């Protein structure tokens, strides 16, 4: 999707939603663990060894990914292996220039956390972490949306590279595609226009994303 898909009304609504979300308190729900272990990959933190990133960098990226897509009543970014996915993508898919920008940006992000709170990002409270991620996201999103036209070879900053890879890795994973979204391998028929509630379970259909989004 392109930035032109967003309009003012929608941004305002999103901002209100976000504010409501933050004010309402962030409640993580580990209660669903039992169910999760049956249907999602195991938490990867213990077993996962980064190949491109250092262990510390991998941990930081994992925390950001989990803030972007946390575990709720469905699996989150860490549950489906997003941190390892990001590491692999950086190693095999991205260019050296992208990798350098990612690592430099990661370092700057962690430095900013230390400057603000005197501790490394991974040692901060969830609330502090969420605030930093939200701030970095909002600034980077605003910058990208302000481009007119958008540069052809857009160089996304660290926070948006992480977000892009988190969304891609999560929504193309089996839990993301089948539990948060819905997916039918062989639909067998095409119904062109049905009430939302009658389109499967009414959730958004899973989709691949081959180009930049």
């Amino acid at each position, binding site marked *: 999707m392109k930035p032109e898909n967003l309009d003012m009304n929608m941004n305002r609504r999103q901002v209100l939603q976000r504010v409501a979300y933050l004010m309402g308190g962030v409640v993580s729900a580990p209660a669903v663990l039992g169910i999760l272990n049956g249907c999602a990959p195991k938490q990867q933190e213990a077993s996962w060894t980064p190949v491109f990133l250092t262990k510390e960098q991998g941990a930081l990226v994992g925390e950001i990914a989990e803030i972007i897509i946390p575990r709720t009543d469905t699996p989150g970014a860490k549950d489906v292996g997003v941190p390892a996915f990001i590491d692999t993508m950086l190693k095999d898919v991205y260019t050296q220039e992208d990798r350098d920008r990612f690592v430099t940006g990661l370092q700057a992000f962690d430095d900013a956390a230390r400057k603000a709170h005197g501790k490394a990002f991974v040692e901060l409270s969830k609330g502090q972490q969420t605030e930093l991620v939200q701030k970095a996201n909002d600034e980077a999103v605003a910058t990208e949306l302000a481009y007119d036209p958008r540069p052809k070879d857009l160089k996304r900053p660290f926070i948006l590279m992480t977000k892009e890879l988190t969304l891609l890795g999560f929504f193309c994973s089996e839990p993301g595609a089948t539990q948060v979204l819905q997916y039918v391998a062989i*639909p067998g028929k095409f119904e*062109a226009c049905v009430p939302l509630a009658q389109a499967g379970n009414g959730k958004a259909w899973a989709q691949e994303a081959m180009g930049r989004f």
Partner: protein
Amino acid sequence: MNENSYDAIVVGTGISGGWAAKELTEKGLKTLVLDRGRMVNHVADYPTATTDMWDFPYAGRATAEDLQRQETAARTGYAITQATKHWFVDDTEFPYTEVQRFDWIRGYHVGGRSIMWGRQSYRWSPMDFEANAKDGIAVDWPIRYDDVAPWYDHVESFIGVSGQNEGFAQLPDGKFLPPMEMNCVEKHFKQAVADKLGRQITIGRVAHLTAPLAHSPQRGTCQYRNMCIRGCPFGAYFSSNSSTLPAAEKTGNMTLRPNSIVYEIIYDEKQGRATGVRVMDAETRQTTDFFAKVIFLCASTFGSTHIMLSSTSSRFPNGFGNDSGELGCNIMDHHLDVGARAMVDGFEDKYYTGRRPNGIYIPRYRNVGKDKRDYLRGFGYQGGASRGGWTGLMLDETLGKELKERASQPGPWYMGVGGFGEILPYHENRVTLDRSRKDKFGMPVLSFNAVLRENELKMRKDMANDAAEMLEAAGYRNVRTYDRETGVGLGIHEMGTARMGRDPKTSVLDQFNRVHACKNVYVTDGSCMTSAACQNPSLTYMALTARAANHAVEELKKMNI
């Protein structure tokens, strides 16, 4: 020489070669069918056909190494993924020279690009076959719509084309299976554009089975997976592998030989005819001559042209059948990557199930009837409406639990249309042999020098503006046009480098796709095209191939060749 002798040789197994194989073998000719690439058995050799997205590495994306090896195919934006990359040529093995950017998107395997094609299947109209004569452009087609119409009937009936008969003069009706359905936004768009601008829209005409075909019981109906490009395990869309090659096989008259690179046509000066082809085995690199009474070149537009340019003799010092000097000239394609897109309100309570492998089609209306523009010819649009998904949350402030909740709801509706514009046949847009570079097998590579010119660039302005005008007429918002930089070839509708014509002095092929100067060699792929129209051309290649095969068999019966 007997063991290598056949009645007919077909070079290539794509859209055209598969049809030549079917028609010639069904008419009783012992036929050798050659393809330069590996064997691809229907279903068994579609390695990713049933793979779920989460079972691909890299979420399906191409790696840096993939992009380095398959850079030209990657220019499409969709060809090089973990699900599809095995269908496209490795540039490092088979390079070509670009004097100007040229996008040559190739598939070297049995079935060719009939496996990855877009499946859109439109007839050309009387207007298209008359256009060159009427405009005084290039040379006249030696045939008219009525010459091809019965062959359109023939191929549509066999391959199965889903579509709606509309009675449009510029887009003739056909022998259609039931049409696919437009979604509610597309129906709204169709009505609004008809009411406000008087332009017609129809559902895309696609080579998919929306009902069974009695004569091809091995093929199933469309299951709406929209994973066609990987190969269809149901055989629901037309490919050589699912349709024509099995029909040829069934006759017992076909010898299919993969890994067979034809690099020269053998010409006998005394007899004044071609006697066979020279083949290099891609696995052993051994060379073998094969002989036949009639030869069909169906190796793709530039594949066939490459063979002809390489086949020099004292009779044909400038390439096989190239008395006119037109061989390799007049490269055409459809220029695209220009159109518009908008958001649509008012259908939030509506959705769809299944992934329709098709969209809508807006047939050409520019320079039709009383419409007159400052350029020649025109364009059609393909497009469609759908609801946005999780990718729409990328540039958004929502994160965390809210992001998951929003992602699970279908996003806003979008409607978009993109143009397919006619490119005129310019003598200067040409391909030549570059003898200074060799491919993996030591063959000289092709060198392309073709550009869009003034007529196409003027047309592109209309293609963007008209798209926006229609979306605005329908009352949609955030209408945005796009006009991306493109190379000739990106339409993957390359045509014209061995064109048909009435006069041997100005064309390579006659009215039956025969080489003017060598009556037992037929060229029936896109290289034969004299103009490009704006409709997807594959259906026309099939019709011309079936027509030429019929002619060849008649000529053989009459002992003319």
